[in-house]
């Protein structure tokens, strides 16, 4: 079984540019989550999709961040325009509906550096 796949693994962009991160969950997992860890801080929740619907987006920091999951398969997280404080590691995770309490399966993350 393929795991959660994220790409790119690294991205370096200039302040003001746009970046799009992609996450491919494990096949059949309806729940998809985005988390991020900025330097020296905790890993924090961004949002949760159930299929193509946003179940909880309370962790999205501001309207420069846009997450989509068209068709309920892969998801994208766009940052536009990027700011320096957006630098960090962005993690995606997925789970089956009935196993969400058993912990998610995380991807390897995308390290975003805004210069």
């Amino acid at each position, binding site marked *: 079984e393929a*795991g*959660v796949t*994220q790409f790119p693994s690294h991205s370096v962009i200039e302040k003001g540019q746009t970046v799009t991160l992609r996450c491919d969950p494990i096949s059949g997992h309806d*729940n998809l*989550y985005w*988390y991020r860890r900025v330097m*020296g*801080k*905790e*890993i*924090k*929740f961004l949002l*949760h999709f159930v299929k193509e619907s946003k*179940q*909880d987006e309370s*962790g999205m920091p501001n309207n420069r961040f846009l997450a989509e999951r068209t068709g309920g398969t892969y998801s994208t997280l766009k940052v536009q325009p990027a700011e320096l404080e957006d630098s960090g590691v962005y*993690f995606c*995770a997925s789970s089956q509906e009935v196993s*969400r*309490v*058993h*912990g*998610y*399966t*995380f*991807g*390897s*993350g995308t390290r975003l550096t805004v210069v």
Partner: protein
Amino acid sequence: AQSVTQPDIHITVSEGASLELRCNYSYGATPYLFWYVQSPGQGLQLLLKYFSGDTLVQGIKGFEAEFKRSQSSFNLRKPSVHWSDAAEYFCAVGPSAFLRDKIIFGKGTRLHILP
């Protein structure tokens, strides 16, 4: 508010020595507790989890953790560490109906292994 505290940012132990990583949580009910590990260049991997029952839980890679309700703690232990255990370890609480599907992470403890 729910929170997770990992008081040690860095810990250094010699290969073959025993290890204990501390974790304290704040949560209004019986929590779901997790330990995740992130090795260099890898994603977050679930080491072990506690939901109920036996308060000593066994995980992968020879790790175990003990839930102590009276101390609000969930410390991770390993009797003899290997150089490959060098990584960052995260204690986490959730998800639950109260937290919806969020996981609350601690800030992490980076483990260094001396040869």
